């Protein structure tokens, strides 16, 4: 099943209902009802991994603990993604409301927004809007408060357990899982950690009911999603689109007429070449994305694209596990050696095997997903890497 490309307006919609009114209305209902609505809506995490949000909240609610936390992951660092910045800038109250609803549902009294250091210019306005929101919560006797934390320029801290480590004053090195955050997250307490966009959708689903959301998208990919469109396009920017569209329609709408490939899901995502546009669906049944859509036209060298990505991973790898630390370096050195003719083209196949090792043995999503861009670019543009 697939849908047609359709623009929607849920995230930034201004229907004059203040977020705090949505909150007051929502918390009159039981926590179990809210969870059922979220599960029914089919909402999956919008950061990229796609875990069902309702289940995440349910698992955390079921944990027996006096202290629980709600964390908004605003450490948007995936190359080509900039939609969370726009959401934080334009509709922050909808994020706060989602966090407060979550606090009510799981029984948490504290929420944190972990904002990437590169977005520090947003801190001042966010803090003043937060002060106002926290004040309103207090006035209405809602026992929940939200605090701001800043990152310091580490991509890997967008990985949830690395983010907890960072908030605890440590190096941002991902933890082993399990235990999952729903059991032991920040300060080893049960924690819901959601992406910025996911939290806004929870607010909007509580406001409009699950039906309207569910009516959008496909069986596996319900609802809509905010896409960050960049690269060789005349209309780069933020677009909220229904999930489940075929990539060719996306390219027709956003491409410059000469699109050679689209990188879906950022540096850690998949590169789709022109010949596969027709059979690629953007959604959890096809290629999922945290929102990043980078368009390349025929003037671009895919060697340069892959080289950029590998440099990125080599620099952003936290260094604690060997498969990722050594793997990223060797992949980068490897394609350079093939390009210079110091290694034979068949060395690329050895490197592909290395990504399989990384996928199995790396500790976190960073190392596990380096194979996505690597293999999709090598498989589809091998000649550009060699010559």
């Amino acid at each position, binding site marked *: 099943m697939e849908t047609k490309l359709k623009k929607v307006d849920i995230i930034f919609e201004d229907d004059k209902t203040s977020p705090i009114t949505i909150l007051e209305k929502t918390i009159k209902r039981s926590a179990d009802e809210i969870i059922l609505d979220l599960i029914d809506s089919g909402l999956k995490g919008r950061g990229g991994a796609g875990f069902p949000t309702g289940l995440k909240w349910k698992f955390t609610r079921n944990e027996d603990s006096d202290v629980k936390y709600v964390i908004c992951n605003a450490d948007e660092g995936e190359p080509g993604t900039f939609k969370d910045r726009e959401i934080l800038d334009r509709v922050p109250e909808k994020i706060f409301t989602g966090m407060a609803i979550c606090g009510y549902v799981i029984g948490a009294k504290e929420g944190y927004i972990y904002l990437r250091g590169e977005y520090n210019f947003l801190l001042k306005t966010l803090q003043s809007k937060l002060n106002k929101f926290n004040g309103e919560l207090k006035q209405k006797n809602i026992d929940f408060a939200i605090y701001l934390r800043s990152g310091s320029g580490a991509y890997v801290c967008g990985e949830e357990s690395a983010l907890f480590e960072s908030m605890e004053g440590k190096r941002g090195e991902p933890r082993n899982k399990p235990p999952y955050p729903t059991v032991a997250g920040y300060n080893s307490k049960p924690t819901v950690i959601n992406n910025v966009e996911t939290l806004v959708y929870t607010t909007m689903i509580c406001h409009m009911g699950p039906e309207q959301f569910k009516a959008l998208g496909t069986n596996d990919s319900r609802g809509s999603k905010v896409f960050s469109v960049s690269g060789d396009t005349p209309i780069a920017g933020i677009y909220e689109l229904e999930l489940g569209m075929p990539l060719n329609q996306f390219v027709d709408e956003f491409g410059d007429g000469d699109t050679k490939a689209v990188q879906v899901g950022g540096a850690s995502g998949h590169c789709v070449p022109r010949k596969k546009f027709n059979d690629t669906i953007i959604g959890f049944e096809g290629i999922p994305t945290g929102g990043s859509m980078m368009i390349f036209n025929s003037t671009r060298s895919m060697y340069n694209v892959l080289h*950029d990505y590998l440099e990125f991973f080599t620099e952003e790898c936290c260094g604690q596990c060997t498969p990722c630390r050594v793997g990223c370096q060797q992949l980068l050195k490897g394609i350079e050696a093939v390009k210079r003719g110091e290694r034979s083209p068949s060395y690329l196949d050895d490197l592909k095997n290395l990504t399989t090792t990384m996928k199995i043995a790396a500790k976190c999503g960073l190392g596990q997903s380096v194979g996505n861009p690597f293999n999709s670019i090598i498989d589809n543009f091998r000649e550009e890497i060699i010559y």
Partner: protein
Amino acid sequence: MTTELLVKELVEKNGKSRNSLMPILQGIVQKEHFLSEEAMLSVAKELDLSAADVYGTASFYTFLDTVPRGKNIVRVCKTITCHMKGKDDIINAIMNQLKIKVGETTHDKKYTLLTANCLGWCHKGPVMLVNDDIYPELTPAKAVEIIQSYGKE
């Protein structure tokens, strides 16, 4: 203000627990542009941590520099879309203007030039951060003008 006093002030504001370490280190960088050995030792003492723990955390993060930096830190985005939109021209223009290479600091300690991974403005590249301020849709001339404006302060 001496570094020791600054640390004391930040500890008072953020608390003595390990969870306060990041905000404290970020506060020092904001004032002194990098984390000196003195600053890290003083944080370790205040929070009752080993100096190695403080250095371990500090050295992990790109924005927590442990080597001296200029008053204004310029970070030009070098990730793919900004690369495609001409970040090399921007970097070259700034290098010519400041007479330094990427990673270096000017003699008057006014500027440090660095590159950064994706700053989240891919639709408006090339882009750079000067301290916490963002400048999208750059041209070489525009970048030079912006850098100059920081010299006047």
